[in-house]
């Protein structure tokens, strides 16, 4: 059984905001199917350990314990408007100029 369908890949591409061509969808669906079947072993490995230990394995999101880091809230120099806009695809009146953000009604 395949782990992922072409339709699912198309939906994921929409979520990820990538306009994939039809032939890209075909190829990706095949490749992701192989990759997903391979990486699905993680749940089997975890289940085997949990069954042997009789308790759940905690998840680790990060190699070191994370703690929040704060600094005094003091003003300091940052980028100028020109520097911040220097790489913008389009700028106007010291602002990023973007395409329209609303659908037409």
């Amino acid at each position, binding site marked *: 059984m395949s782990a992922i369908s072409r339709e699912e*890949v198309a939906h994921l591409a929409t979520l990820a*905001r990538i306009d994939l061509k039809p032939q890209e969808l075909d190829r990706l669906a095949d490749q992701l199917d192989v990759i997903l079947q391979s*990486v699905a072993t993680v749940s089997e490995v975890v289940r085997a350990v949990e069954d042997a230990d009789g308790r759940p394995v905690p998840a*680790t999101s990060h*190699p070191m314990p994370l703690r929040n880091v704060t600094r005094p809230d003091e003003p300091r120099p940052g*980028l100028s408007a020109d520097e911040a806009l220097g*790489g913008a695809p389009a700028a106007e009146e010291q602002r990023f100029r973007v395409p329209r953000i609303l*659908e037409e009604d």
Partner: protein
Amino acid sequence: MSELIRRSAAELAELLTAGDVSSVEITTAHLDRIAAVEASGRAGVHAFLHVARDQALAEAAAADQARADGAAPSALTGVPIAVKDVMTTAGLPTTCGSRILQSWVPPYDATVVRRLRDARLPILGKTNMDEFAMGSSTEHSAFGPTRNPWDLNRIPGGSGGGSAAALAAFEAPLATGTDTGGSIRQPAAVTGTVGVKPTYGAVSRYGLVALASSLDQAGPCARTVLDAALLHEVMAGHDPMDSTSLAGPVPPVVAAARAGASEGIARVRMGVVRELHGDPGEGGGGYQAGVRARFDEAVELLVKEGVEVVEVSCPSFTAALAAYYLILPSEASSNLAKFDAMRYGLRVLPDEVADPTAEQVMAATRAAGFGDEVKRRIILGTYALSSGYYDAYYGSAQKVRTLIQRDFAAAFEQVDVLVSPTAPTTAFPLGDKLDDPLAMYLNDVATIPANLAGIPGMSLPSGLADEDGLPTGFQILAPAQADDRLYRVGAALEALLTRQWGGSILDHVPDPARDGADLQGAAR
């Protein structure tokens, strides 16, 4: 004096300190060498995406002035360096090997780059890489692959193939890298150079274009263990701009490298990781015979020196690759969401849409600006994080991460360092694995566990494989924040091997520069 380009960074620093040569002379010799080696364009080594000749020479002159004033800020002041194109450089292009950043010039320096500038290391240019550091061959660069100086038809490893190839082709004495799953160590292994992934948090991630934030770590690339240590001390240190930056002092890696070379490493307890040895049926089977032979011989050599070697088992490592290829795409899909075509980088308008929305522009830009591997991993990560699949995929992968940390903790109760071959094979031919993502991912099978656990790792040359005459890598792993152990053991092994070989392995690399043009201006 012999060719400056063949000198180690430590030797160049000594020459500079003695006043025998200037940084401008050293930097000029390397820029001329780059011009000669890169003259073949993409058919040649193609280690660099951008060469910063004028700026490098100005920085070299400033370094000479600092030394003349008796105010050299670092032992490496005046020694030039190549910088991986994943690190932001104010005033120099930073593309990450991607079309989406093709003409981007960052407005600020990464902390690592700032440290190089503060230490006055002239920056020769930016090195090629797999797009957004996704790959093990540098073939996923949008600007064409880097080729291995040992054989121009073969890959230089990845993602940091540009930095490793630049070192092996004597285009730079030092380079920087980033290692998310092996991107410093695997290129080092297949090019006969040295690469170190420090402990997670040792080197600031500020200004590094993020791939997977919980795995990314910058580190030194060099031709000798001592050179890597000297660069490590320049790059590492606490940075308030990175909330995951370690607060403690940098381990004494330079002293460790010198001690390892001069005093040896008798009484060190070393563990050979069974699951990373490539034995059939141990999950990472299929290691090339020559890779295993050179590794086993290096271990024997250390045993003769009095090192205590035991086999250790880390059973969860067989699931490390699978966990990595869930965690990495998940984090990458989130990190790469920032490429939205609005604030910087490429903007592509969709065809046949009269008045496109921002979303349509974003989707068209990402379709045109990202390569196949980046799209593949973004989609994979989006899937692994989606509701309904999260527990089975991303959640389980995070639990495997716990198991791998436990395996390392148990192993380091028995031994001081762990060792393995760095990569399962020597450099493979260009194109060999390009259409088979799973085969490509297997290159990282031995390097990935260190990233998942956050511990430091080094690769150094262990010799040339009998079957193809190409370099093989020896990996050393140490507990978190014990990076100095890598350097102590690495320098000791390097000293033993170079004595056995009668010189460096890079004495045997073919000269990729055309018509001997490299010798003009390079020889002093």
